[in-house]
């Protein structure tokens, strides 16, 4: 017997799916606390290194928010660039190449200062 493959959206759970689920429940919780009737906008901060693809989050969001007060809300993604701190000379810099070299001393080890963010800044409600 031939079983057609299920290619439905809920079967393909990339990490954006769980992130979107957490994001939606956080937004609904905050809107509930404020006794809001509708969420119109969700403002998100996403770091370059977070591995989160905005289009993917939007896609899942539209699907899983359908029967909630967040249905139709627009998602705003503010991207935070990667910032590194040189552990030798303390310079904070944005890497311009794959090597993540400190532009001043060239060789020291680095620490990631920003770029991993994945948080909700605010929501707009009615």
């Amino acid at each position, binding site marked *: 017997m031939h079983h057609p493959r299920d290619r439905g959206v809920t079967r393909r759970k990339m990490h954006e*799916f*769980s992130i979107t689920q957490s994001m939606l429940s956080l937004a609904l919780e905050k809107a509930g606390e404020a006794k809001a009737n509708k969420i119109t906008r969700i403002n998100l901060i996403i770091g370059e*290194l977070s591995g989160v693809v905005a289009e993917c989050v939007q896609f899942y969001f539209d699907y899983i928010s359908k029967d909630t007060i967040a249905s139709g809300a627009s998602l705003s993604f503010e991207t935070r660039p990667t910032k590194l701190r040189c552990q030798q000379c303390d310079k904070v810099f944005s890497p311009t190449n794959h090597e993540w070299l400190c532009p001043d001393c060239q060789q020291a080890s*680095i620490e990631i200062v920003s770029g991993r963010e994945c948080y909700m800044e*605010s*929501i707009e*409600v009615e």
Partner: protein
Amino acid sequence: MTVKIITVGEDILGANEEKAKANKKRLDSHNILTINIMSSPGAGKTSLIMNTINHMKSKARIAVIEGDVASSVDADKINEMGIPVIQINTAGGCHLDANMVESGLNGLPLAETDLLLIENVGNLICPNAFALGEDLRVMIASLPEGDDKPIKYPAMFADTDVVLLNKIDLQPHLDFNMDAFTKTVTKLNPDVQLFPISCKSGEGLGAWFSWLESEVNSKKNK
């Protein structure tokens, strides 16, 4: 209707972090050293776990949580070794999260465990973003993947406590530049423990076992 702005300022994965902390507390109460093993598919996570079990089972009581997209192939192998194992299928999901691990813990004999090895889903993109409640993160990289993997997935390498560089027996057949790899990894992560190993020939595993043994003992005596 007036629009109101509500400041949230919370991590989206905050719920996972909370759950991970609860798992950690539970594992700490039994003094279990918990290790989250991450790598790309095929780098040698299961081989490492089996080698580690063989060497360590006389010294520590081991349990395993196996995370896979589907199947119980890996868990079956561990089960045959007589080690308590829970298989978690993520049904397409690309990482384990703290919730899945909590359900895994419910099925393991925690009071009779010293070392918990958690095999994450093979993936270099996101498992590092999802804390599970582990004490230590171990990443396996392998020679056939190339020496540029840390450059391509910096966050994974920056977040780990240990890097095991597996399949060093293949060095004569490959153009893998050991110096370049080591340099990139230690630059991203100056405190990292780096062990070149071969799960096939056994080379280098001794150093990993001794390190792990001392970590298990220090957790046991906490």
